[in-house]
């Protein structure tokens, strides 16, 4: 079963092959469902000139934010970058190129990339700066923008459970961008909380079939909370 055992036992193995100038797509929404250890590994490797695609860029000192500290990110594609002072500084100084993309369009561009759809039309962003320089078209009386898809050299995701075939299940809203991101990498690496035996995951309840996943690594996660809201029980 060598060919289908995707479990690796070190972060060096997990991110082997990552090179300067590559595109990395990362799962997660805010700090929820992010592959903490894989991001830390990229920081450790010191890989530079990366294009990073992710809904957010973490916060100062955590999540993808740590890759800003040594200026490893050349370009960021994201929908929302509001929680990060270092990000704002590098953006305003011109050190960091940013392509702001509506959240739904970003999700769909990544899904399309994994699904062999090179471009699609969406009404989102028509008539706004997002549509500048893009083809627009009226279809059945509505205006749409043509959006190209996104694929990456690496895709990094966090899952809850995996088996050695790379089948993944996500936990609660830590699912977010992870399923699409998992489909869009030439090499997709899943950092997971638990590795189970094949057959333990109910086939029709697998969120990401293993065909999309090249490497699986088990990890412990800090799971930092951004906005801790509590009601009196």
């Amino acid at each position, binding site marked *: 079963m060598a060919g289908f055992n995707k479990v690796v036992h070190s972060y060096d193995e997990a991110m082997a092959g990552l090179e300067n100038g590559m595109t990395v797509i990362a799962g997660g*929404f*805010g*700090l*929820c*469902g992010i592959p903490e250890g894989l991001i830390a590994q990229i920081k450790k490797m010191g890989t530079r000139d990366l294009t990073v695609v992710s*809904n957010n860029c973490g916060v100062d000192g955590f999540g993808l934010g740590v890759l800003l500290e040594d200026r490893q990110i050349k370009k960021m594609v*994201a*929908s*929302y*970058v*509001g929680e990060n002072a270092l990000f*704002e500084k590098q*953006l305003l100084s011109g050190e960091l190129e*940013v392509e*702001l993309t*509506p*959240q*739904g*369009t970003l*999700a*769909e561009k*990544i*899904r399309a990339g994994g699904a062999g759809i090179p471009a699609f039309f*969406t*009404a*989102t*962003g*028509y*008539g*706004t*700066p*997002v549509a500048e320089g893009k083809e627009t078209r009226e279809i059945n009386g509505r*205006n749409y923008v043509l959006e190209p898809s996104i694929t990456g050299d690496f895709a990094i995701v966090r899952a*809850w459970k995996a088996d050695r075939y790379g089948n993944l299940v996500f*936990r*609660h*809203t*830590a*699912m*977010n*961008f*992870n*399923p*699409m991101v998992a489909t869009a990498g030439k090499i997709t690496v899943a950092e997971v909380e638990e590795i189970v035996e094949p057959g333990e995951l109910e086939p029709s309840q697998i*969120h990401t079939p293993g065909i999309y996943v090249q490497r699986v690594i088990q990890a412990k996660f800090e*799971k*930092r*909370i*951004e*906005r*801790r*809201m*509590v*009601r*009196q*029980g």
Partner: protein
Amino acid sequence: MALSREQVAMRVAQELKDGYYVNLGIGIPTLVANYVPAGIEVMLQSENGLLGMGPYPTEAQIDADMINAGKETVTAIKGAAIFSSAESFAMIRGGHVDLTVLGAFEVDQNGNIASWMIPGKLVKGMGGAMDLVAGAQNIVVTMTHADKYGASKLLDACTLPLTGVGCVKKIVTDLAVLEVKDGAFHLLERAPGISVEEIQQKTAGKLVINGEIPEMVFA
């Protein structure tokens, strides 16, 4: 007197109908969930991937893997569904969400909305707002009628980069409820004690006033 944030939310809540799927933006829109009218049930959609959002968790329920689109810890009601962000925006873009309530910097008389960027000052990104205004069946904007210097936010044409074009149908401000149609703001209701003249004076865009304008009624 101008409405409080809570009163704006209470008035917006009157737009809810039984069985509506609703997406509430950050800020005042979030408060709308506290004022769902009696006898009506709505289901809240959170665009990170949750349909059937519940209240904030108790201390014991807090789970880092359970958050809303505002990145706040949250719970799910019985009957909730959780899914990917691609699925979430398929719902939104596909027109399956009945009502979206969101804030704005500016709205204009053609239903354009600007809510995500102030050039040179603020570049946080649009998040899901552009998809929401392009996708929902019905968009209600909540905001103060004028900024803190008294300048109107209801314009003939937005000056800031747009979030969406021709999509806003209704506006609830601290002073009034307005409908946007035929290239004008149509005044429907005024806040208790607020005169039509004050609303007219604080509305830079074209304002249509038809007959007597009633005061808002709060249950």
